[in-house]
């Protein structure tokens, strides 16, 4: 990738210029075509997730650092090749007891991390990530994507690949001039954002997953109007260590005491 051209006469503080509303939150984008961001080779995004809101899993074409500005919740980074190290203990007990009819309750998945205000999450390019707000206040996270990283072999545009959800209607707040400029640059910001399953044939998906075509259609989320941040009724339950008892917390407590 060629080095970016930095012809900057003035530097200005930048506000997000695009806002996408979902059922349980908002995603705000700064203009990645802004010459200052272009020069630095970065693209920033801000997520505001309401209590019990789940930012649906997605990945991007660049590595990113996410700072938790406010709130607390849990985060899942799905790293390829890593084992599902979080198991339901109840499942093991049931299996030992031979109660296979209750296998419906079993689950295992990759590590889940508790997050709170002040935390930084480092996510390599292409790693799928989801975020859930389990606090009482909105969870605010600012994410900076290094689109000029060598890990990104595409162009410098930030590209989101959703694994779930779809964004059929977008609330944009472009200024007229910015809108015209982006149209000139061939950006397609107003195209509905579907998940990647939507691009596959329903029959192929059903065959691949070994599920019914009805379930395959749900994967595509064609009639899903909730957007990319959805409300989880009754709260999200997932196997994980008790709050405050995970490895990082213990380590932090030890450091304070020592």
């Amino acid at each position, binding site marked *: 990738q060629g080095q970016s051209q930095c012809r900057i006469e003035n530097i200005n503080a930048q506000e997000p210029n695009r806002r996408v509303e979902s059922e349980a939150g908002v995603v705000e984008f700064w203009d990645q075509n802004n010459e200052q961001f272009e020069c630095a080779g970065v693209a920033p995004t801000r997520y505001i997730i309401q209590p019990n809101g789940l930012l649906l899993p997605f990945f991007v074409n660049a590595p990113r650092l996410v700072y938790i500005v406010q709130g607390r919740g849990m985060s899942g980074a799905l790293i390829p090749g890593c084992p599902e190290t979080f198991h339901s203990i109840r499942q093991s007990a049931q299996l030992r007891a031979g109660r296979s009819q209750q296998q419906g309750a079993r*689950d295992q998945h990759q590590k889940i991390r508790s997050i709170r205000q002040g935390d930084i999450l480092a996510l390599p390019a292409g790693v799928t990530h989801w975020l859930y707000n389990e606090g009482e206040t909105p969870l605010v996270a600012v994410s900076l994507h290094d689109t000029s990283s060598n890990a990104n072999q595409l162009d410098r545009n930030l590209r989101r690949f959703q694994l779930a959800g779809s964004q059929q209607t977008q609330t944009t707040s472009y200024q007229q001039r910015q809108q015209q400029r982006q149209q000139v640059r061939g950006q397609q910001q107003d195209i509905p954002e579907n998940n990647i399953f939507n691009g596959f*044939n329903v029959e192929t998906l059903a065959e691949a997953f070994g599920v*019914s075509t009805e379930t395959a259609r*749900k994967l595509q989320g064609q009639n899903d109007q909730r957007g990319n941040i959805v409300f*989880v009724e009754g709260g999200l339950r997932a196997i994980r260590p008790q709050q405050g008892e995970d490895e990082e917390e213990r380590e932090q407590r030890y450091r304070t005491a020592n």
Partner: protein
Amino acid sequence: GVEETICSMRLKQNIANPTRADIYSEKGGRITTLNSQKLPILNFLQMSAERGVLYQNALHAPHWHSNAHSVIYVTRGSCRCQIVGNQGRQVFDGQLNQGQMLVVPQNFAVVKQAGNEGFEWVSFKTNDNAMAIPLVGKTSVLRAMPVDVLMNAYQISREEAQRLKYNRQEETMVLTPGSRSQVRA
């Protein structure tokens, strides 16, 4: 001292030999990867390769490469191939035939289903350790997520979410055809 390392380096490795397959399915086919861990010279090239064989109607699971472009060359047979880019846009849906070449950009999801005569290909990756991330099967991203996340993401029941995660059981990358007949809708 460069010549002392390069000159004595191994420069070739066969990837068509079935006994060298990394992923093997009796009814589905096989995939052999060649990366810099197996052939260190590839570290200099920053490239790697993959050789695949799919039997009649078998599927190469939907997946993407997180750190490389991929260029597929069809060595035998044909397949139906679909490629999906960002914003869920389908950028390719068509048949790939012997002698044809197809570029799959980094992070773009791809699925292939072999035709009646099966499908064989070799693909070149622009990273010496190209990382494939499957959407289906034992090592898939969906299996790595809690069931509750799947239920809320796709508005499906717990049972449907369990089926999404576990229906393909131990299979990975190479999927045998006909699994839908086992589906309890």
